[in-house]
């Protein structure tokens, strides 16, 4: 049937792992907060650090973190990376920038996409805010925050976030 076809030189060999993920008590609180457009964390009763997203315990003090804290969507870029390699699994085209963002009042940065800003202008100390999906699309998922964008505030000093790199 196929004498004229070219020899096979490559095959698709995807690795596909399907997990059933149960969020647990702390992450469930956080995700239910996302569905309401709120960012919820937890404060350690011993060292006072605020974990966003919360994990239910402080890994330094080894105690449960049962004090809930709401933080705003404003924060500071502590560090970042520029993605230049395209992939089928990415929903946007490179180049784009992802950053570690330390929300005001939080002690643990998390990873998020930066948009509404040229990819190569993202910098350490840059002030950003969360951009949420429309209210009717909010859900118990991180994807309720579309991305972060720059705000018109002076950069945060290195001193203010150097403990969080």
């Amino acid at each position, binding site marked *: 049937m196929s004498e004229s076809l070219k020899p096979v030189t490559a095959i698709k060999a995807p690795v596909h792992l399907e997990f059933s993920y149960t969020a647990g*008590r702390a992450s469930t609180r956080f995700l239910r907060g996302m569905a309401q457009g709120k960012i919820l964390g937890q404060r350690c009763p011993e060292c006072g650090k605020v974990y966003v997203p919360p994990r239910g315990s402080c890994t330094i003090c080894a105690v449960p973190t049962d004090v809930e804290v709401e933080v705003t969507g404003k924060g500071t870029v502590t560090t970042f990376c520029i993605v230049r390699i395209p992939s089928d699994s990415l929903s946007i085209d490179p180049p784009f920038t992802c950053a570690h963002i330390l929300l005001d009042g939080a002690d643990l940065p998390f990873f998020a996409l930066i948009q509404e800003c040229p990819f190569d202008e993202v910098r350490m100390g840059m002030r950003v805010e969360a951009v949420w999906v429309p209210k009717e699309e909010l859900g118990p998922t991180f994807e309720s925050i579309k991305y972060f964008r720059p705000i018109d505030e002076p950069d945060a000093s290195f001193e203010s976030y150097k403990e969080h790199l």
Partner: protein
Amino acid sequence: MAAEQSRLSATHVLEYPYRRSVGPIMGRFLTGLRDRRISGVRTGDGSIVVPPLEYDPATGAPVTEFVDVGPLGVVTTWAWVTTPRAKHPLTQPFAWALIKLDGADTGLLHAVDAGSADTMKTGMRVKPRWRDERVGDIRDIVCFEPEGS
């Protein structure tokens, strides 16, 4: 504290969409499948290895001679799958089996659609069931089935 809300749970899929180059030896095996041909290689001691290896496992020398085998063969060992999983080649219960194709000296791992575990036997003769749309992939053989079926 408010009454505890039920915990959230969701399916989480992790997928690496690899595309893998197969090289000239495996490439020839896969190209053969597209034409309903099963090829092995002859190693230094004269044995036929299917699916082919790029190097003689005894000496490390590159293999050069291709030999067509099968398409019929014999089941040398097997394990029954009572509950096939989503990525398995068949939706009904089947056997994973090592099949020594006629002319080959090694076993090819593939599925055998035998209907029930009672039908499966070591030593049984099987033949490939080919896929209509073949692309040069091991799944060009849907499965093996008992010779008489």
